[in-house]
């Protein structure tokens, strides 16, 4: 209103610009609406079971037996946490080592190759990981691990999740290490520290908040992961016995949802109980996000160098004298005990003791080395870690391409499946995936870009805006299976869309919306203010400035971010498995209300339902990989193209 008063000599500008502003605001608030929707649907659907079972019994109950009316989620919660923990134990050393190698050790020209290679990991759809786990890792564990009676296990799940968390951990920690000011390194080197000492004692501690973020992000990805764990953990709803027995089968919350949602009777207690599991999952993820924010704030205060932290740093760090003096000893003792327990449980008492002593002896020998030699040994170890990471990637991709590429043929790509998928092609799955991509883009791009432009250009810091951002933040951390559940309850059942293309597109659009909003906002914010001011100074309206100056300038950022999001959507299985896909189609529907086939689900279906269709399985995996990776490749080519063309 006040704006209208100020510019009343120019009547036209009020209606248009303010309408646009309101419109964009509405679009942005859609993000919050979606979060509210999701919570509302999940909470309201879960109430019945909580009422029936009781909240505490539900969470602490140790038996999950829906057919007998027993809903004890404790083994599922512990399964989720254990698998995540195991994944971290595996991904942390590998991820950090690789990040250190890329950022601190590798010569510059290799750095630019290694990082994209690691990013390829994140382009592999989770169902492909699951497929690889099922075909390679599970049999490997069964045949090679001493004491294994079966391959489906916590170990297999953690291994797969660890690989999946690697790209996040590597790229985010590498960014953090890279961002450590050069002056810290110089200061350390100038004191006669070796490069390795500089890395370990200065660079890594200085980057600790970024590395923490990397770990938490990786952990978030692992907790919410569905397909890969579902296919390899055995899904027995038990707490391993003993608790560190990684060869025991376990079941995660996500796997339970994916397995039991498909045929559960709508409206039953079991149905409601599944929604409560989704709520638990959401709660865990939100808790992790919350903790990560706190940890990051604290570590920033301690190590960070931004202005805000500096003021706070003037306050004395609360640290007891005793702790600071004995912390080293305590940490060492804890490490030795953990090491001993881990090795013991794996190798048995006698060999466990021998192995522990051996590890400690090696460690002591290492620390006694002259610093130069220690650097050589450490560099060698980091290089080994890097090589392992690359080897894993080559192994996964190589295995799938070697067996899948020969299957590809014109017929395979253009024919309908026959004989329940045993023979014939995957034409409808390819088309279905493309339809899903296009539909998802049609919904997510306008909403996401509109909301991003609003946040980047129009919003002020108010309570409403903070609510918006919180909504987007939470939407971003939500596991994809929860989107699937929500899509089922909301679109398929409540709005009566049934299993349909439109329900799948809406669900996927909600999934990628936060990514598009964020990249748009960031891209818009990087447009130099001088440009905007130049346009405004020429008498252009805000909206004209946005459309003619800001958006074209921000376009490369927006487009690459959006393409990456689409790539993610294209490979997702969990969100579409209860909303849009059918396993088998002999003719394709033409309307938005018809269900579709899709490559990720088709691969899941073939891998778990049609055991003899190995050729078809590998062929589908290759086509899926090719589509998703070409999307990612397109994004990175575009980024390179634009970064050469424009430079700010």
């Amino acid at each position, binding site marked *: 209103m006040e704006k209208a008063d100020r510019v009343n000599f120019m009547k036209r500008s009020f209606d248009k610009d303010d309408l646009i502003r309101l419109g964009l605001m509405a679009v942005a608030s859609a993000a919050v609406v979606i979060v509210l929707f999701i919570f509302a649907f999940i909470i309201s659907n879960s109430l019945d079971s909580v009422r029936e079972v009781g909240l505490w019994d539900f969470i602490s109950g140790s038996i999950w037996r829906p057919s007998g009316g027993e809903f004890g989620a404790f083994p599922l919660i512990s399964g989720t946490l254990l698998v995540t923990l195991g994944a971290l134990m595996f991904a942390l050393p590998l991820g950090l080592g690789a990040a250190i190698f890329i950022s601190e050790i590798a010569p510059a020209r290799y750095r630019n190759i290694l990082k994209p290679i690691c990013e390829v990991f994140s382009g592999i759809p989770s169902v492909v990981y699951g497929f690889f786990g099922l075909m390679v890792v599970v049999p490997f564990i069964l045949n090679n691990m001493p004491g294994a009676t079966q391959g489906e296990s916590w170990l297999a799940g953690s291994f797969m999740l660890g690989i999946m968390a690697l790209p996040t951990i590597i790229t985010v920690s590498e960014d953090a290490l890279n961002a450590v000011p050069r002056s810290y390194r110089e200061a350390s080197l100038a004191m006669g520290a070796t490069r390795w000492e500089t890395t370990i004692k200065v660079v890594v501690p200085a980057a600790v908040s970024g590395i923490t973020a990397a770990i938490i992000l990786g952990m978030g990805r692992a907790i919410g992961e569905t397909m890969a764990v579902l296919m390899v953990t*055995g899904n027995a709803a038990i707490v391993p016995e003993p608790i560190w027995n990684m060869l025991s089968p376990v079941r995660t919350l996500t796997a339970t949802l994916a397995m039991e949602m498909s045929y559960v009777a709508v409206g039953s207690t079991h149905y409601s109980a599944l929604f409560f599991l989704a709520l638990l999952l959401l709660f865990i993820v939100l808790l992790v996000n919350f903790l990560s924010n706190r940890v990051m704030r604290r570590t920033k205060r301690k190590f960070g160098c931004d202005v805000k932290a500096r003021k706070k740093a003037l306050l004395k760090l609360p640290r007891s004298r005793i702790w600071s003096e004995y912390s080293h000893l305590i940490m060492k003792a804890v490490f030795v005990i953990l090491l001993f327990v881990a090795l013991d449980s794996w190798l048995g008492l006698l060999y466990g003791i021998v192995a522990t002593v051996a590890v400690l002896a090696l460690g002591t020998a290492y620390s006694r080395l002259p610093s130069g030699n220690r650097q050589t040994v450490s560099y060698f170890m980091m290089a080994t870690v890097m090589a392992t990471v690359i080897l894993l990637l080559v192994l996964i991709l190589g295995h799938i391409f070697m067996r899948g590429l020969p299957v590809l043929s014109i017929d395979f790509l253009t024919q309908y499946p026959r004989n329940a998928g045993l023979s014939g092609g995957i034409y409808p799955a390819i088309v279905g995936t493309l339809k899903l991509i296009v539909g998802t883009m049609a919904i997510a791009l306008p909403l996401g870009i509109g909301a991003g432009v609003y946040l980047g250009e129009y919003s002020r810091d108010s309570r409403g805006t903070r609510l918006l951002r919180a909504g987007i933040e939470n939407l971003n951390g939500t596991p994809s299976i929860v989107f699937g559940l929500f899509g089922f309850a909301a679109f398929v059942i409540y709005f009566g869309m049934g299993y349909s293309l439109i329900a799948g597109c809406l669900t996927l659009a909600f999934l990628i919306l936060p990514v598009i909003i964020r990249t748009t906002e960031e891209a818009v914010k990087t447009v130099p203010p001088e440009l905007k001011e130049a346009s405004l100074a020429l008498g252009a309206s805000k909206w004209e400035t946005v459309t003619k100056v800001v958006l074209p300038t921000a376009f490369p950022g927006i487009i690459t971010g959006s393409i990456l999001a689409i790539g993610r959507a294209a490979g997702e299985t969990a969100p579409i498995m209860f909303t849009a896909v059918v396993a088998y189609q002999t003719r394709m529907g033409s309307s938005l209300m018809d269900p579709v086939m899709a490559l990720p689900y088709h691969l899941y279906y073939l891998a778990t339902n049609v055991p003899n269709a190995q050729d078809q399985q590998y062929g589908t995996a290759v086509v899926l990989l090719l589509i998703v990776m070409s999307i990612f490749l397109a994004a990175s080519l575009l980024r390179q193209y634009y970064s050469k063309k424009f430079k700010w």
Partner: protein
Amino acid sequence: MSIILAIAITAVVCIGGMSVLGGGSSEASETELSVTGSTTVQPLMSLFKENFENVTVGVSISITGGGSGQGISSAAQGTADIGMASRALKSSEKTQYPDLVETRIANDGVAVIVGSNAGVTALTMEQIRGVYNGTYTNWNQVGGNDATIVVYNREASSGTRDCFESVVMSGSNFVLTANEVASNGAMKTSVANNQNSIGYVGLGYLDATTNEVTVDGVAPTVQNVTDEVYPIARGLFLLTDGAPTGWAGAFINWILSPSGQEMVAEKGFVPL
């Protein structure tokens, strides 16, 4: 403040819009055929529905679950046009609802399969139950090799598990350490990959690669299921109040036709 208002407005618009979108398809005036009952039959019924609606104009079928008991009572009381049941009518039900007509549309048979090193080819019902409730943990306890039994089970909402549980387990619970897989195919793969395993699949999944065992001496074959001598089997029934007529009759006839029975096989049940 204005943002919160905008959020509220957007919410209303979204819900309204999607309701219209979703409701759009059922606007045309069609005869509605309501089907309710067994969740085992439900997925099969969904498949029937889709395909029947594709070949027929003027009918729309709505399906709800609720269990066999509810299917029987709803059909008898006329709250549903067709009831679904995964068991035959009990004699008490027959006297209570004399007009109720049951039509068998498919059979459901479950074969027990074992890994290559189990060393058994025949098990009794009691032995299978013992393996699945945790009484027996080594194959040598049921006449096989000395090896730990690795038990595979289906997920909780599976109809195959439902059939297996109702016939074999007779009230005792599945051992908690059993692995769970989400489909017949996954079961087959898992059992094939682990030489000490035991699992169960729909009859349609047996082939040269599976090691199925006889149950109480009877082999799991389609013939034995049809003859009702194989124990882990049951019929799937539709119930109508009086002989099926009109759309219900047309629908049930189509189900019994070759194209309907093809769907039966596709879902892993035994066609008639």
